[in-house]
């Protein structure tokens, strides 16, 4: 027996080389991803623990302190058009901006993922129904669809979240269906079917582990788009309503201030940019880590 098990002199590896541990290892070696993850973590933590950071009140303004430049003592990032401290507004603003950027993608991942995997596994009429319905929404450019739904429903955070979720379900659904269909044709799925397992068990044991990775990576690549689009909705006045701090809304209200204090006016957009690019780089890093065969 032992002669057979060392057929070609293959020794048993010392580390358990499962798929996900390999992914973790590759990610840990990717410096760009680590830096991005650290930056994002810092921003998220600051947003969550904002009340404990000793910041000024983000809602308290004063007309004599309007539009102070960056570096003013006591107001390190200046003040906005109503005299509110910018540093505080930016950090508190992260709460809503991140919420609007992450929640729709998370929801779309769950809903679109489930529908897509279902469509991919079951095939046939169910697949056609689901995919054709998704195609209808695909016939709209995403910005237009988000604005149309938001515009129709009216301003407000909940409406923004709803419209963004609807916009992101079709692309995730498509990827989920496509990946599931290609996994479903593999022999090991046939083997699982021929052992008499129910569809649900097969999806749970054999399909999910092989499709969630690519779907998840694709979803993370959508986060930056969602952040930009979400902030864009607020920028147009369709999302967050004043006086809530939120980066897109702040860009809107500070627009007229570009002639007086351009530095401060540009700050909220810089935050969106930083978070967006960090998510994109992280998503790319994740894709490379997941991509290696085996």
């Amino acid at each position, binding site marked *: *027996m032992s002669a057979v*098990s060392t057929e070609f002199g293959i020794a*048993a590896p010392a580390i358990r*080389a*499962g798929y996900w541990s390999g992914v973790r290892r590759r990610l840990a070696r990717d410096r760009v991803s680590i830096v991005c993850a650290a930056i994002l973590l810092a921003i998220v933590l600051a947003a969550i623990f904002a009340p404990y950071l000793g910041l000024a009140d983000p809602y308290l303004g004063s007309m004599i302190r309007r539009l102070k430049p960056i570096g003013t003592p006591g107001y390190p990032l200046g003040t906005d058009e109503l005299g509110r401290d910018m540093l505080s507004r930016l950090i508190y603003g992260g709460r809503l901006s991140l919420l609007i950027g992450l929640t729709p993608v998370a929801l779309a991942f769950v809903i679109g993922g489930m529908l897509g995997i279902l469509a991919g596994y079951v095939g046939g009429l169910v697949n056609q129904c689901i995919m054709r319905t998704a195609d209808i929404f695909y016939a709209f450019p995403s910005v237009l669809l988000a604005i149309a739904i938001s515009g129709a429903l009216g301003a407000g955070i909940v409406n923004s979240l709803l419209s963004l979720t609807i916009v992101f379900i079709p692309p995730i659904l498509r990827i989920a269906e496509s990946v599931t269909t290609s996994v479903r044709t593999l*022999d090991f799925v046939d083997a699982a079917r021929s052992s008499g397992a129910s569809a649900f068990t097969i999806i749970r044991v054999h399909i999910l*582990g092989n499709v969630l990775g690519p779907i998840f990576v694709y979803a993370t690549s959508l986060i930056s788009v969602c952040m930009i689009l979400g902030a864009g909705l607020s920028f147009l006045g369709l999302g967050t309503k004043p006086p809530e701090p939120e980066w897109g809304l702040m860009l809107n209200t500070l627009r007229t201030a570009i002639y007086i204090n351009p530095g401060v006016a540009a700050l909220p957009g810089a935050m969106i940019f930083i978070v967006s690019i960090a998510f994109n780089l992280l998503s790319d890093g994740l894709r490379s880590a997941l991509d290696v065969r085996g």
Partner: protein
Amino acid sequence: MFAAEFLEPAEDVGGPAQPLLEARRLTKHFIRGSRLFAGKRAVVRAVDDVSFSIVKGEVLSVVGESGCGKSTLARLLIGLIEPNRGEIIFDGELVREALTLRVLRRRVQMVFQDSYASLNPRITIEETIAFGPKVNGAGNATACKIARDLLAKVGLEPNDFAGRYPHELSGGQRQRVNIARALALAPRLVILDEAVSALDKSVEAQVLNLLADLREQLGLTYLFISHDLDVVSFFSDRVMVMYLGEIVEIGTAYALFQETRHPYTQALLAAMPSSDPERRTAKPPITGDPPSPIAPPSGCRFHPRCAYAEAVCSVKAPQLGPIAAGHAVACHMAQAGSGHSRAGQPLQRQSLNA
């Protein structure tokens, strides 16, 4: 449920005279192309009116070129696809009626061709093998014990291999896992779909020996699908030759290799590479491209490529008829009174020398 009980194969219902599996007029058509443009639809006749039986304890091989329907046949027998027409009878019981699919799955299992796609890359070997028993009611501990026992049986040290992933195994080792997985439900019939085709020759020999041992130990019956006639001649009791979805010849290994009656079988045998300097191939044994299964030729499907084709061959399709005990051929030349000038005469040894 104890492991030993679980691994006990089902009892022999029909007795030794009953064929283990009987296929009657199995037919499977696939429709290719869009349904919108009717008339443009291509019908692929993957398996067309196929009838044969498998004797208990034997190794029946199925040979043929790609596209002849071997894999579709395998999937029909294991219940993964539903036939358009025809029946399958397992040990005397009609499948999908007396015998439910769920029970059939415990009786018939398949070993797939080795490729990266035959094992789930995300779960360990042990989990792969234990999946079948777990799904069929075995507890976790029982299923794992079964998996480990089977690993040992196929020659892979359980403590070493149980926790490995497919990418950590060589091709031969993966095929052993495939075999272990197939045996996990204690089947009586094992279908081997090109199970050794992708392996290096030395590894192939080892796996074939393992299969032979297992067959003896566990009283298995094999349906061995292959395109490699050397392996088939070594391994089989009976051989069945398929062409474009139909059986053209079926008989014992001896009869097929030594007393070939169908021109296609003859061509296949002649095409086997040989290191015998006396057997030089100057003429190709078979000409023309294999026609597509969408629009098979009229009459005998082989007639465009057959060296002995005559007028009757393009008009009437020959039926599979016995010419000796346990040897049947579908060819006009084998049936007296078919209208073929050579009817009733055995085939000449085809000379391929220049």
